[in-house]
């Protein structure tokens, strides 16, 4: 169970968050939509403290972090319960595809190297990149890099996977393979919080869709409700524009 209460970010650069409340059930798949600059990515980045929220609490399992007085240790513990997929992939440039997956398993989770490699190899098979195991990110296509990015996140066995516009930086030809992989991750009952502009994908994969604007959750509900019968005028305006 993941519970976010009154998450607020008002100062500094970028969009603000105005007291986000959010409950996420284990295995739930939530898609966040909304206009750009509205705080969707900031919400994700605040959940693992890549951006520091100023107030609010985040509870993941038995760990509760109060943003106002979060310690280094708590932030580290929170990050170790979450996994993050970046818009620009952010693969470790000095590591091969396999090493990108094993790195955190060995360095952070202290797993034996052989076990980490076995896990990485099984993930590389799953994401269809077995033969790219020894390739460095610079030698992979955008779609391949993002698949490794998702594989790296999968390996962490995190309680919550955060996807920050995972297909927005991709050439159109690679979008399909990344969305396919995300569907497969979803089938494994992984708890996912996804920011995306892929509306068709959102409708298909989400248990719940959240519409955000101005740093607030404006409206949320099952995809049929949000896409076919939105209650708020702002949601309707946004959906008209993206269709």
């Amino acid at each position, binding site marked *: 169970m993941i519970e976010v209460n009154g998450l607020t970010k008002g100062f500094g650069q970028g969009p603000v968050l105005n007291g986000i409340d959010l409950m996420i059930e284990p295995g739930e798949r939530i898609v966040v939509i909304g206009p750009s600059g509205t705080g969707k990515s900031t919400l994700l980045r605040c959940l693992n403290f890549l951006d520091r929220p100023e107030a609010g609490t985040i509870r993941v399992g038995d760990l509760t972090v109060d943003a106002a007085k979060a310690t280094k240790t708590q932030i580290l513990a929170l990050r170790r319960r979450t996994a993050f997929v970046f818009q620009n992939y952010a693969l470790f440039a000095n590591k091969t595809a396999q090493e990108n997956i094993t790195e955190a398993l060995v360095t952070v989770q202290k797993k034996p190297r052989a076990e980490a490699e076995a896990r990485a190899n099984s993930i590389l098979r799953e994401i269809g990149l077995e033969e790219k195991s020894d390739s460095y990110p*610079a030698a992979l296509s955008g779609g391949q890099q993002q698949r490794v990015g998702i594989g790296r996140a999968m390996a962490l066995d995190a309680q919550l996977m955060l996807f920050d516009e995972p297909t927005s930086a991709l050439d159109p030809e690679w979008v399909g393979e990344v969305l396919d992989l995300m569907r497969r991750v979803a089938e494994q009952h992984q708890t996912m919080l996804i920011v995306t502009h892929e509306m068709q994908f959102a409708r298909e994969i989400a248990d719940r869709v959240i519409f955000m604007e101005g740093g607030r959750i404006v409206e949320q509900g099952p995809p049929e409700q949000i896409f076919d019968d939105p209650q708020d005028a702002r949601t309707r305006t946004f959906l008209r524009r993206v269709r």
Partner: protein
Amino acid sequence: MRALDFDYMLGLVPVLLGYVPLTLGMALAGMALALVLASLLAVERVAKLPVLDPLVVLFISFFRGTPLLVQLFLFYYGLPQVMSFLTQINGVTAAIMGLTLHFSAYMAESIRAAITGVDRSQWEAAQAVGMTQSQMMARIVLPQAARIAAPTLVNYFIDMIKGTSLAFTLGVTEMMGATQKEAAGSFLYFEAFLVVALIYWIIVETLSFAQRGLEAHLNRAFTR
């Protein structure tokens, strides 16, 4: 003008080559220590720790702002007078110490620049998988900074090899000191110093050749 004494020069080559291990040894030891010290200084400069930061700035400023020869004299002839436990310090140790401190100040600045040159997304990815600050530095940031800093660092190493010649002023008979002694015996100063110049030159050129291999190695992850 008189003709060069080639026989003398040829005879001198093996004598001076015997001192190459000492010259390279001092440079390698100095470089290894300077790399460690410079990395620590650079990481501090990036993290800007309270209290420590002004001290690091002062250290870098002093060792960049004063001549290497002055620093060597300060360590070898000066320090033992005020710190009695240093009276046993020998010339080789003092030279390595001086080279280390002097070059670490320069290298810290280029490593610092290289660290800030590592893409922001690399830091964030390391944080996102739950690495501590030091894991992030050791595993992700510094290896990538090494690639950016490598050409400059090799240049400092070349400078350091040549810098070891100053150790003769501390009474160390290294390659330069040996040449000095040979020349004083034969009075063939031009020949002697020409030979030693050529030996330094060949060492540095060999290194420049190795540098290309090193850079290709460090770039392997970044080429398609």
